[in-house]
């Protein structure tokens, strides 16, 4: 049984058929790529998986259970974490606080306990802070723990989003354009980090990305969508030469005698 299965998922916004009968399966431990031209519906698919949108038709199952239409907070609890295309860190909070926010399952103390600062509350806080520090170290953000998140450079903010997501102890991590704005050195580091997340932390990763150096290098399976529909799925080698994929990104090839002189 795959970790995540989408079956014939449709998403319609008024007149716009944003996602049309998309199906794919992601095995546990895979690094799965989701690519396509702008507006193809990739982020919409992420939003469908994480419960921000509800599909009109189709099934989305995670670890065997249907999650289509569940609330985002519930889906996050079940083990799906995500980052955002437009970076949504909590800008006025510190880096450490950003990560700690996601630690609800580690922090069982009640509101009353928080107000009275009971011993069990203090214990939970310490455990949470410790775990947050560990995650920041993994993502190389430990020295920035006390900095205000909004003042960080974009690359660090993206890593912060990942650290924050990891606090959920997820099984599945959805990364939405993590390489945006990175140079080739940073992209290479990102590749290593993604592999680390899978190899050392046992995560399954789905990647929406435009940067082909990242996608082709780190993904094992790539699923291509255009205008909301699946047009191809396969290994990076297969996708690189797939005619439909090339057509979608580069346009149809014109016959030679139509080229202007």
């Amino acid at each position: 049984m795959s970790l995540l299965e989408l079956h014939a998922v449709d998403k319609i916004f008024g007149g716009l058929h944003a996602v049309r009968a998309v199906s794919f399966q992601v095995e546990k431990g895979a690094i799965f790529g989701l690519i396509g031209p702008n507006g193809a519906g990739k982020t919409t698919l992420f939003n469908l998986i994480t419960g921000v949108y509800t599909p009109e038709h189709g099934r989305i199952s995670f670890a065997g259970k249907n999650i289509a239409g569940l609330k985002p907070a519930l889906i996050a609890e079940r083990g799906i974490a995500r980052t955002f295309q437009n970076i949504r860190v909590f800008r006025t909070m510190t880096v450490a606080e950003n990560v700690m926010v996601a630690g609800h399952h580690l922090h069982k103390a009640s509101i009353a306990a928080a107000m009275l600062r009971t011993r069990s509350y203090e214990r939970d806080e310490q455990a949470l802070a410790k775990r947050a520090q560990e995650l920041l170290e993994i993502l190389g953000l430990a020295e920035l723990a006390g900095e205000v998140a909004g003042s960080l450079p974009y690359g660090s903010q993206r890593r912060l989003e990942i650290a924050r997501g990891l606090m959920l102890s997820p099984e599945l991590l959805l990364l939405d354009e993590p390489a945006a704005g990175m140079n080739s050195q940073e992209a290479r580091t990102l590749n290593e980090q993604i592999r680390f997340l899978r190899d050392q932390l046992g995560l399954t990763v789905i990647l929406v990305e435009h940067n082909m150096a990242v996608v082709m290098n780190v993904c094992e399976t790539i699923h291509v969508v255009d205008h909301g529909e699946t047009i191809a799925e396969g290994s990076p080698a297969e996708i690189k030469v797939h005619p439909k994929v090339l057509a979608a990104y580069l346009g149809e090839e014109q016959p030679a005698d139509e080229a202007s002189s």
Partner: protein
Amino acid sequence: MRAVIRLAVASAVLLAIYGLQFGVEAGFTEYVQRIILLAGINVILAVGLNLINGTTGQFSIGHAGFMAVGAYGAAFVGVQLARPVHAALGSGPFADALIFNLALLAGALFAGISGLIVGMPSLRLRGDYLAVVTLGFGEIIRILFNNASFLGSATGYSGNDPSGLPAYTNFFWVFAWATAIVLLIHNLTFSQTGRSLTAIREDEIAAEAMATPTTRLKVTAFAISAATAGIAGGLFAHMQAGVRPEDFRFERSIDMVVMIIVGGLGSISGAILGGIFVAVSLELMRDLQQYRLVLYALLLIVIMIVRPEGLLGTRELHQLLRRKSPKPAPRKTEGA
């Protein structure tokens, strides 16, 4: 051991407040004393409102309604309890203290429940709609009290005694409650719950994606905020001869908004400063009511244009003394 230390500190603080009371009552005129009491009550209102408007970023402008519920609730329960408690414990200060605090707690409970009732449907709405709905609820509450004959309708409720409600409120009770509430709200704001509320303010969608139970937390914060307004209402009621719907008009909600805007939306110390500011300006401009409101209006407009974060922004006084943290880059708001 920890509990013993805490008890000792609490007793010391209460003793200090009690001692201060003698100083205040001896050293200031009735007029000034009243301002001081109102300032204390405002602090409670401001810090409570700041929890929902500032920390959680949910704009509620009908809080006078919750203050009214607390005021009427405390007044009513206090009057009902007077006979049985005096019968059991005589009529000394201990009995009065018991009646008063039970009444205040009852008022807070009623206010908290009304906060739940208002909050549950409303907190699903977007910012400006939430503001209008809370305004509407505030008015509905006032209209209900205005038409409740067993609570005196428009003339108000003053209990069974011809001289009005017992004047339980004094410096000690106002500032003991203010200290307690400021402490509790402070602890809440700087806890995991507080972090979650701030996350909701910053980016509710991201907060949800991080498994934050946003609706439950918003409603809970709203109820706590309403309950504190209830305590303030109860304290206010027992400074007056009676409780009237007139005291809880929309202007009162605006006063509360001014308190937290001036001090800085999201800052507890800012709310305290704002509360004091409003109490003082209220009295200083007592004869110039119309001008006071014009001043508040201009203040709101100018602050929004020139320095929207108010005096302290989201920072606390003690943070100003440390190294100033860099301001986050301004961001154009998206759809939300």
